[in-house]
């Protein structure tokens, strides 16, 4: 049930290659996404989005009637929703431009379907987290909205730091998040020398979410590298 609501999101795919559109649509379909519309030009995309009101868009940068960056501005001007660029242009400048204009992610072709799906799910989880306050872990649930953990029917509050750390782990659920990325999530840029504090916070988080904190199953340590959050249904 956990991520089913995300699969209902209306997705708009824009690329000038019809075959690529078919393929991306089939990848999304296979992963459970049901509401997908495609467009081959900016004009088409604008027309479709007026009628369809997408909640997420995957855009190519080079389109027959203009640039995907311009299209994004146009689309976001009516309703702000997440955008991922999927493009054959691997130039760093393009990447920076995409991000500076407000893109949520930028992927260069060719790509593995697995990687694309991971990124889409991460973006959707981050953008629409309010709609599903309960994240199911083995042994407990997290309510990010209310910053609390529900274990055995008991509500245990999370501190701000614990909330930030768990949110970073949840965005990358099922993947390792480095010690450095977690420190940055909790303490901001250039977080040096917080490794020991991070370990203390992880210990306290485990006491809150794990059934047996001494042998964790939801928040796993990857020695020397970082931590991984196991979310049910992933």
């Amino acid at each position, binding site marked *: 049930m956990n991520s089913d609501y995300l699969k209902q999101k209306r997705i708009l795919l824009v690329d000038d290659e019809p075959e690529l559109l078919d393929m991306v649509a089939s990848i999304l379909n296979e992963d459970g996404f049901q509401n997908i519309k495609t467009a081959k030009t900016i004009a088409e995309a604008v027309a479709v989005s007026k009628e369809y009101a997408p909640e997420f868009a995957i855009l190519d940068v080079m389109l027959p009637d203009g640039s995907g960056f311009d299209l994004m501005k146009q689309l976001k001007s009516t309703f702000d929703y997440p955008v991922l660029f999927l493009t*054959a242009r691997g130039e760093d400048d393009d990447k920076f431009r995409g991000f500076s204009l407000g893109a949520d992610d930028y992927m260069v072709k060719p*790509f593995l379907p697995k990687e694309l799906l991971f990124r889409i799910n991460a973006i959707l989880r981050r953008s629409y987290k309010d709609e599903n306050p309960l994240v199911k872990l083995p042994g407990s649930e997290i309510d990010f909205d209310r910053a609390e953990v529900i274990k055995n029917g008991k509500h245990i509050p999370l501190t701000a730091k614990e909330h930030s750390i768990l949110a970073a782990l949840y965005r990358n659920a099922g993947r390792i998040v480095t010690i450095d990325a977690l420190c940055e999530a909790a303490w901001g840029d250039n977080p040096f020398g917080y490794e020991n504090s991070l370990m203390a916070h992880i210990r306290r988080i485990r006491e809150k979410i794990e059934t047996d904190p001494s042998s964790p199953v939801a928040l796993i340590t990857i020695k020397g590298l970082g931590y991984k959050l196991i979310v049910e249904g992933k």
Partner: protein
Amino acid sequence: MKSVLKLIRRFVGIMLLSSALLIILNFILLFIITVRQATNSQPWQTAKEVADNLFQNDNEYILPENLALELKKTDTWAIFIDNTTMNVVWHTDDLPETIPMSYSISDIARLTRGYIDGYPTFTGEAENGLVVLGYPKDSFWKHMWPSWDYHLIANLPKTFLTVLAINVTLIFMIYAAANSRLLKSVKPIVSGIQSLPAEEDVHIKEKGLLSELAANINKTSEILQSQRRQLRKKETARANWIAGVSHDIRTPLSMVMGYASQLESDDRLPKDDRKKASVIVSKSRQMKNLINDLNLASKLEYNMQPINPARQNLVAVVRQVVVDFINTDIDDKHPIEWETDEDLKVCFADIDEDLMKRAVSNLIQNCINHNEQGCHIFVRVMTGEDTCMIVVEDDGRGATDEQIEKLNRSPHYMICDENTSEQRHGLGLLIVKQIVTAHGGVTEIGHSSYGGFSVTLILPMQE
């Protein structure tokens, strides 16, 4: 050529002119000195004049006032010796006491050719006797007879030095006047030649003596600049061509990769077919890496890749690369071990984060590509003396000493300008070397203590 001839003509002219001027100058000097020194015959003449003008008046001899004054002026005394008595019958008032008052024939003979008591003497014949003039001692050089003006000889060194100094000064003035223009026109040419190798656009004013030379330098600079532009254009075209090709391959390769990947995970397909699909996936991933590498290598080679270094914690950067590999890599045949010392939390270096991540992931990808049978990969960050080191090694099949020597020494085919059919290593390592070199670091390739291949990146540490 024209300006060289002009120069030679000029130099010959200056030489002739200065020689002529020197000769004239020396003649003038000689004349002045000669005129200023008393002539040798003058005392004799004076003696003759005195003899002629001495007249007798009432048994007394009288010298006209003007002559007496002239003698007084030169401190000269005079006597008149009578022919018959051989005695002095007249003398000037200032006659020194040591001068004898009577003379023998031999005395007369001696004084005619020389001196009385050290006074140089000159004689003049009068009607009844002989007039003798006595010049001050040391007024004539003691020669056989007093013929050389004393000051002429006494001042000879001084005169010689003065003439020499005047000559040198004249030569210097001629040289300075003649060459100041030449030096003025040489100066911009020298600075122009000096800035040619610095790849600067040189433009010298084509004026003056060496205008032809200046024009040639300007032309050379123009040719160099246009060659540079051409080369740059060619390099840009080549890098753009590579970028264009890799762009055009990306979309079709996406389809290959995407569909093969779907087939690979399709439960309805027989196991054999899924295995085939998995080979397509892994090979298309290799092609993807190749395209990325080709593009980056050409950009790095032609300096078209902007490098934006910033102070970064290398431990964090390398850790992120390792985690990205573990997160995306599906196969279990190549486990990555994080070997960095737990106490090493930070190691700062000035790096372009994206490029350095690329270098490290290329090294890890290399271990995977060259060990299809599977291997352990060991990644470690260490500190040396003022350096940060990244070590990526494996326990795979490794390489022979000869191969390692070659990897360390020989250039890659991308940057090799000779025709070669020799099999060279992949682009992955070339990029690593390019990136590390661009960061002022060193790449060392060798054997791993784990039995396989080992690459160490050594970068300058930032405090």
